[in-house]
């Protein structure tokens, strides 16, 4: 099958409806990305008010999820989409659920940032958190790019990065445990830090899910729970078939 597109329906209004809902997903994704960036900055630099802003900002994320859900329901009811169009709507409905969860994780980090605003932080540990935060944000951006460009190979790269993120997370946890053993007075704060770090790791998982929905939409294959190797194989086979066909 050729690469799917969104346009060229006989009904121009249908093209416009799909384009609109896709734009909405991308702008929700942009907002969530900003939430992560702000939350991590608030955590690293101890800006309590910025953490508070992130917590407040989550209502906007939630509102967008509901709006997009409604739009998807409307399209399903009125257009009865088929094949690639149907997969797009299903992929969007799932993607926004993960985006909303990412929003919740960012909110959690924002809240921890507020708690930890007055805490005298160990510099090196927070540097690693900064790296992890940048990494998961990149994953999300790449997943959204893959969605925007209908690029299943880019979606695979998101899944590949998740393993690195998991390793970075483990490293930070180990270091946190060391601090707590050295000085039990840090336990209370370190637990907050580790909650925030866990939230970042979860953002990586959600981004990976979004990548998998892109593969489903573009290739028509459900690649969840099959392992990274099988995922890479599935997508490279399809890509090769498509290139041979061209």
């Amino acid at each position: 099958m050729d690469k799917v597109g969104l346009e060229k329906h006989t009904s121009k209004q249908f093209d416009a409806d799909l384009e609109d809902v896709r734009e909405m997903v991308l702008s929700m994704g942009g907002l969530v990305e900003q939430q992560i960036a702000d939350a991590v900055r608030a955590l690293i630099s101890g800006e309590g008010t910025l953490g508070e802003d992130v917590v407040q900002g989550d209502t906007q994320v939630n509102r967008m999820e509901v709006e997009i859900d409604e739009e998807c329901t409307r399209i399903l009811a009125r257009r009865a989409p088929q094949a690639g169009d149907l997969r797009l709507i299903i992929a969007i409905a799932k993607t926004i659920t993960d985006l909303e969860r990412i929003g919740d994780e960012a909110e959690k980090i924002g809240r921890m940032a507020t708690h930890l605003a007055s805490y005298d932080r160990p510099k090196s540990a927070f540097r690693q958190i900064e790296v992890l935060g940048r990494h998961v944000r990149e994953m999300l951006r790449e997943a959204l790019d893959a969605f925007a460009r209908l690029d299943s190979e880019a979606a695979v790269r998101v899944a590949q990065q998740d393993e690195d993120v998991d390793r970075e997370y483990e490293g930070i946890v180990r270091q946190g445990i060391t601090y707590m053993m050295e000085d039990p007075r840090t336990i209370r704060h370190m637990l907050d830090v580790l909650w925030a770090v866990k939230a970042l790791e979860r953002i990586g998982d959600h981004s990976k899910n979004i990548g998998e929905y892109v593969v489903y939409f573009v290739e028509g294959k459900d690649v969840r729970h099959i392992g990274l190797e099988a995922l890479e194989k599935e997508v490279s086979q399809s890509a090769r078939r498509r290139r041979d066909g061209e």
Partner: protein
Amino acid sequence: MRTRDLTGDSTQVVRVPTMERPRVNQSTKMSVSDLAVWYGEKQALHGVSLDVYENEVTALIGPSGCGKSTFLRCLNRMNDLVPGVRIEGEVVFEDQNIYASEVDVVELRSHIGMVFQKPNPFPKSIYENIAYAPKILGQVRKRTDMDDLVERSLKRAGLWEEVKDRLDAPGLSLSGGQQQRLCIARAIAVSPSVLLMDEPCSALDPVATATVEQLIDELKENYTIVIVTHNLQQAARVAGYTAFFHLGNIVEFSDTDSLFTHPREKKTEDYITGRYG
């Protein structure tokens, strides 16, 4: 065939697959090979092959003029009557090519019944509409047997409860949906094993359509059904298998779930998502 051996000498049919077929363990009720049809100079079908699975609903979809109705009508030789028609290829039903010269077409059609787009009851009573064919085919002679057959056929078509008190009323006095179910009852009265339906719901309102679709669902237990429909949703709702026709060829044939969620062919995708033309 069941009542009479029409085979003469049974030749081994060599099948050359011309397209990817769904891999299923279903038994094949009818097997079409390289069927080509011309109306005068114009070729309507370009050598298509398709297996019709037993006790399944197979939907034929495609834009107007794609050959799907021509294909359907070839399955019980309804095209024979068209002036200037030329038909090549094989349609095998119960080990017999139905286009073999020794086949009795009337007999054939009692095994492969047809329901048309517009309900077309005879201008006779409801009872007579059902009883007519079994009577002239000599399948039923006793009045009580005929009463049973009429009741059984109307029940199977889901019409009995609505008409049992007025079997003498003209068939044409029924509503459109009822008339179509009467035509289905009439088709099944002669105990066919295959039912061909040419857009059976296109003249019906949504409620009557739903009734007929429910009926199709029930009928597939006992019959093999091939249905031509312009309504893609209908194909998605009723059919286990769907074939997409385009310009006299079958572009794609697969199970309905696959065809409507991830079709293999770009042309199929474009058609079912409304990007055709």
